[in-house]
């Protein structure tokens, strides 16, 4: 959660006595406090985060979005194949392709900022719930179904969950012969629309497109968004905290504490557990600076200040992924039948969240960057 008792330090020349209640703090007098000088608590030297920011922007974010866009292409091909011959094996291939595309999207939820938000792509790709009343009405209508006509509809009639509803309906019970021609038509149009959105997202970050990657990589220098490297680093940590919080206290907890399967994410495909794991893998990617390739991650910075913290956090993240994976499928049943495994997953993700908030964010905010 957002619960970081973070202490910012003041340095002043006129300090004589300092009394701090509750938390140790390096304190100040007042004459220079406004200057806000901060020095790395351990090394005392400024840390150059250029490579971390650059690798985050390119080797993590852009790489994830590129993979998402490629997997969206694969999904479109699979849906077209299903349309060409609506048999069970084509349906299963399309279902597999949906899950494959879902993985990089869920991993990207560890950095839901920038164009995915400002260009309205997150709601267009991932709105929940599906407006099933309107979806039925569109299917019953005689309106043309194209990527453009889908685009004009509400976000609750497009994106991952609408496709999921059409492909899965409930778990793996969907029969190819149950899919109507009109549903196939809708499926193709909405998947084309999804592919257009993933392409837009990739272009928004790509150096050959709008190059948002550059805005992040050049934090503190030529970026028009991030005035300091610290702001860029804080954005990275914020993104990880938000998804850890959402998985621990929203995605897993809400259906679990309410005992309400209607609140389960990716409930049509029974893909919830993979979704949650991929969210935490997204944290792992940002922290380690990796996706398909390997770069410098936040761990380079953390390790230099506190190697013990780095080792502990890496373990906590892997434990969280494994503990979520130990929940028996489908998640919607386990919220009642395997409560202790669900609770263990909540606890493991909460541990990740707490370390991010209490330790890693604090290190970043205390850090002195170039």
């Amino acid at each position: 959660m957002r619960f970081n008792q973070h202490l910012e330090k003041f340095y002043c020349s006129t300090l004589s006595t300092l009394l701090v209640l509750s938390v140790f703090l390096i304190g100040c007098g007042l004459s220079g406090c406004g200057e806000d000088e901060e020095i790395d608590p351990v090394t005392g030297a400024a840390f150059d985060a250029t490579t971390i920011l650059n690798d985050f922007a390119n080797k993590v974010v852009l790489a994830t979005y590129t993979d998402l866009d490629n997997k969206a292409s694969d999904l479109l091909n699979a849906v077209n194949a299903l349309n060409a011959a609506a048999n069970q094996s084509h349906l299963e291939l399309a279902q597999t392709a949906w899950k494959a595309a879902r993985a990089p999207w869920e991993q990207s939820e560890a950095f839901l900022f920038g164009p995915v938000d400002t260009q309205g792509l997150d709601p267009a790709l991932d709105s929940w719930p599906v407006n099933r009343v309107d979806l039925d009405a569109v299917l019953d209508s005689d309106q043309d179904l194209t990527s453009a006509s889908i685009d004009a509809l509400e976000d609750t009639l497009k994106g991952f969950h609408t496709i999921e509803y059409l492909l899965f309906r409930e778990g793996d019970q969907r029969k190819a012969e149950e899919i109507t021609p009109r549903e196939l038509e809708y499926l193709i149009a909405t998947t084309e629309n999804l592919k257009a959105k993933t392409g837009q997202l990739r272009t928004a970050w790509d150096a050959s497109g709008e190059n948002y990657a550059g805005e992040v990589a050049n934090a503190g220098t030529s970026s028009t968004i991030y005035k300091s490297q610290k702001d860029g680093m804080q954005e990275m940590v914020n993104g990880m905290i938000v998804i850890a919080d959402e998985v621990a206290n929203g995605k897993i907890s809400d259906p679990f504490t309410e005992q309400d399967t209607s609140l389960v994410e990716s409930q049509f495909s029974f893909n919830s557990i993979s979704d949650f794991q991929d969210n935490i893998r997204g944290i792992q990617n940002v922290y380690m600076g990796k996706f398909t390739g390997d770069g410098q991650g936040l761990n380079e910075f953390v390790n230099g200040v506190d190697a013990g913290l780095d080792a502990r956090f890496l373990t906590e993240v892997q434990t969280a992924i494994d503990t979520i994976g130990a929940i028996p499928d489908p998640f919607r049943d386990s919220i009642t039948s395997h409560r202790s495994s669900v609770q263990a997953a909540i606890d493991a993700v909460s541990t990740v969240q707490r370390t991010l908030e209490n330790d890693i964010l604090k290190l970043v905010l205390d850090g002195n960057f170039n």
Partner: protein
Amino acid sequence: MKRCLFPFFYRTKNYEFGIMKSNHLSHTQFGMMLFCMLIVACDSDNLTKPENMDVLDKRLSGGETTVFDATSHAFSTPAPNLSEDGLAKHLDGDLEFEAVFVTVPAEVNPGLGPVYNNISCINCHARDGRGRAPTSGEKLTSMLFRVSLANQVDDVTHGPAPVPGFGTQLNNRAIYGVPPEGTVTINYTEGELTTSDGAKVYLRTPSYSIENTYQPLPDDVEISPRVAPVVFGLGLLEAIPEAAILALADEDDQDGDGISGKANYVWDVRKNGLSLGRFGWKANQPTLLQQVASAYHDDIGITTSLLPTESSAGQPQYDGRGDDPELSDEIMDVVTFYIQTLAVPARRNVDDPVVQRGEELFDSAGCTGCHIPKLQTGTLADLPAVSNQTIYPYTDLLLHDMGPGLADNRPDFLASGSEWRTPPLWGIGLVKVVNGHTNFLHDGRARGLLEAILWHGGEAEQSRDRVQQMPASDRDALIAFLESL
């Protein structure tokens, strides 16, 4: 050398809360906030100089609700001084603020429309931030249009008179199969303005036409464009004592400074009478509770106990289901609490000499006549987090004539067609990082801060002229100051 003991209660400075936007949080996960109390005893001549305190204080735009975050989460962080219960309630509200509504019947979030402007709170107020006008070819998502009949007022509220068949807001979207009320086309005419040192500034003037209406729109309809405003810091504004706002009013300009400042008095549903208006571009909402209920009602088509009649009642789009109110009082309450308790982001670079020069110019150009820097909140029942805070909102919450260039020519209660409420400026320098744009003013016509300043007219005309005549370095300093907010 003087010796002093300086008790320094500087809570916000001493703990910072990184984030933010979350969904849900179980109550057990919160410990009590630590209020770090830093007591410094020291030798310093400087300690006796109040301006040093000022420099520190001025970072704390929202007093103890301030958060140190210049990332995309700058507007969407809970106030750091909330109690454990307060934080839990805030996070419940956060979840509801993000809830997406769908057509009834549905298991989750039914009741959308039938006519509406958007399907969730967050879809207009992205990251609790500022909306903008659509670019060419884009859908209208974070802007809407108020409509009313000219030269008439509503019989009951004495506010804008609803247009038969349309009400007081054009709902440009509808559930599938139901006709939206109409669409809006926006056109801009580019203009040019030259500063005293020869720099050119381009100003675009918008024009609007309502088209594709499901039934003919009467000829005498007044239209007012409104972009979604930021929603943080609002509890602090609600906690400013009414007397403090009224003390700033000078409706007939008796002090002769060319600036009036007029209180709006608007319909208060719960009171069934008039109250001081504080919120909205024309200060046409008296309380945040009513602001929230009105937004659900007018923007999403969701009824509440405060406004239990569907916005489409009496129109052919009305579903006649009799399922009102569609939203529980509990949700209305937590969403109200949510926008009352969002943190205000701290200022940056307050010790930069250019920023400090800009701050002086902001004052000497007369901007502080309406954009009052510093205010004190009073006590708001059940909201200790926003009570008794020293804040820097840069508003007086009053109406001012902004001249014909910005006029919408649609009166709203006591606000004339050219009067607007002074919008708060806190956080304005972070709109770009949060929302990815720098479009300002009620209709988003200004594409940057300088354009926004140069659109000021009416009571602000002298100030505008001073900015236009400034040397470029001063103008840059003024902008640097605004960007530090």
